[in-house]
């Protein structure tokens, strides 16, 4: 059963259409991440699910209840805000029990719930402090505690980690994942951070300009992005796009990179592309930085369908674990990944291997992914 269904949901602020007929079915126990650049409508969508924004058109169902006009308190949801929104004049304990007090939950039950949540989140020692006396990470925990204590049907997270420093963010990310694995609560999580989306989600909904671009498992979104927007948004550094034309190469299709000349810039495609593309067709070849690198790069060499490409090293950016290398193929710039112990020199010529199984082809006019 779907825990949350959003159907043809539209939101307009005056003449501005913020959400355009959004559909989203979230199964019970799922962790769905709404991801997209700022202004894509993801936070508005979450606010509408929470009941903090009105619905212009379409419907929202939580469980089997239509909640379009239901006030937030009756929706059986809990929400964690980006700013944490802890009540500054209340202690941590009061913050956590405020919702139960509003609902007239008996004191014994409230105390038991606080004890349960505070030990789960390791905030037992903080219960009598005020939010102003807590560090960012502790505030984050309290905000989570306030949501967890409700045992709601649906958890909503609005960019809960974006105010934390990088290290703490990674820790809390893992913690959220653990919590979800332990509790199995249906969760909708908004973020603009594609790494957060990839690591946390059971399914990712990529939003752009008020419309869902793709709603699928992280692996699918990453490997088979529905269009060039999704391809460039997910993954850092972003996917390389190289304009090309399909040519016949020994009876098999090949992508001739239009920027370069000479046969070394021709990428033969595997036979299963034959039905999807035709000779003379313009395409955009999408290659992830980690799918292109030096010839004997471990990840690429083993069992991959490898094509090589000649390139000139332009910029070298070591990240520690690996080195991002900007190379020049003809007049195009391509980001590639080198192992950190094989960092090339600037100006060098290199022969780069491409894992053709990971290559995506897009239609240049519609920007949609071409299916094999």
């Amino acid at each position: 059963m779907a825990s949350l269904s959003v159907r043809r949901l539209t939101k307009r602020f005056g003449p501005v259409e913020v959400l355009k007929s959004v559909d989203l079915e979230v199964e019970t126990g799922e962790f769905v991440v709404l991801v997209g650049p700022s202004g894509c409508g993801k936070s508005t969508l979450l606010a509408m699910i929470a009941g903090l924004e009105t619905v212009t058109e379409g419907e929202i169902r939580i469980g089997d209840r239509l909640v379009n006009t239901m006030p937030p308190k009756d929706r059986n949801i809990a929400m964690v805000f980006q700013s944490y929104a802890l009540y500054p004049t209340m202690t941590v304990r009061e913050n956590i029990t405020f919702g139960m007090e509003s609902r007239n939950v008996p004191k014994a039950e409230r105390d038991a719930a606080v004890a349960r949540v505070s030990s789960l989140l390791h905030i037992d020692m903080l219960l009598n402090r005020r939010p102003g006396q807590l560090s960012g990470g502790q505030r984050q925990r309290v905000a989570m505690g306030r949501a967890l204590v409700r045992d709601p049907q649906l958890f909503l997270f609005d960019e809960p980690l974006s105010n934390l420093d990088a290290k703490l963010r990674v820790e809390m990310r893992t913690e959220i994942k653990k919590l979800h694995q332990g509790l199995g609560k249906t969760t909708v999580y908004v973020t603009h951070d594609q790494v957060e989306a990839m690591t946390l989600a059971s399914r990712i909904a990529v939003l752009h300009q008020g419309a869902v671009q793709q709603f699928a498992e992280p692996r699918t979104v990453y490997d088979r992005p529905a269009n060039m927007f999704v391809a460039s948004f997910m993954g850092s550094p972003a996917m390389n796009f190289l304009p090309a034309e399909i040519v016949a190469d020994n009876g098999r299709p090949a992508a001739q990179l239009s920027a370069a000349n000479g046969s070394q810039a021709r990428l033969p495609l595997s036979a299963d592309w034959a039905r999807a593309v035709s000779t003379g067709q313009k395409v955009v070849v999408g290659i992830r930085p980690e799918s292109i690198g030096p010839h004997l790069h471990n990840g690429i060499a083993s069992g991959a369908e490898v094509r090589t490409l000649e390139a000139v090293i332009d910029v070298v950016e070591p990240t520690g674990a690996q080195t991002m290398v900007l190379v020049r193929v003809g007049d195009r710039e391509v980001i590639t990944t080198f192992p950190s112990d094989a960092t090339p020199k600037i100006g060098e010529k290199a022969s780069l291997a491409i894992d053709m199984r990971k290559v995506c082809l897009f239609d240049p006019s519609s920007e949609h992914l071409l299916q094999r």
Partner: protein
Amino acid sequence: MSEVAAYDPMAAVAGWRYRRARIGVYVILIAVAIYAILPLLVIILNSFRDLDDIAHRGLIAIPLAFSLDHWGVTWNKFCVSGGCNGIAPFFYNSLEMTIPATIISTIIGAINGYILSMWRFRGSEILFGAITLGVFMPGQMVLLPWAITLGSLGLTNTIGGLVLIHCIQGLSFTTLFCRNYYVGIPEDLIKAARIDGAGFWRIFRKIVLPLSPPILIVTVIWQFTGIWNDFLIGLVFSSGSGQPITAALIGLATAGTSVHEYNVESAAVLIGALPPLLIYFFGGRYFLRGLTQGAIK
């Protein structure tokens, strides 16, 4: 070995110029301060002087002898506005008027501000603009409408009537203060409370009010001093024993036939000015802080 700074004539000149400028600044500031405080000083000194002393040596002089007698006379014996109970009844009138008017206008202002900042509705900005228009409205413009209103409510020449006028007239300010302060409260707090199941009043009581002391202190000080010191409305809408102290002081000064008792008048003015001074003295810290305080973090 430590380095010994050589004598630098340029630095010496700069230092001297700096000191000269400083001295100039202080001389000007002290002069202005004396000029500003002088009237108050004259009044205070006169309140301790005998009438003979004032008559012979003029208003501006150091007292020959300090006497507290005039304060006692002023408080409950002197004859003003037809009665001879001193200034005390009028002082109590002012308290009876100022305290309820301050409290009521502050509470309504806080509720107005809460609604106008956190429960916006279509036209709420226009409504806010209309309410704050009162800030710029001169007091004499409203005299006639109020005369008619008080008349039809049967509140003419009552303390209740004055309380009503000051409550309504003060709303513009109290609403403006509170609304602008509450705008700084993060919206997420209200959203979180709504999800937590708190309603309109519970959010106000449990979340907004506990954050309000800085602005409430500002509003109370503003209202208390404003209402206490108001003299136009008191003079126009009350008479005889129902007057607030500001209006009664006028009666004192224009008493007519007898000789001016400057010492009593001085003491009366000082008594009349005391409550706002005390309020400001004890709350001034918060007043300045509240006016400059913006967001709550």
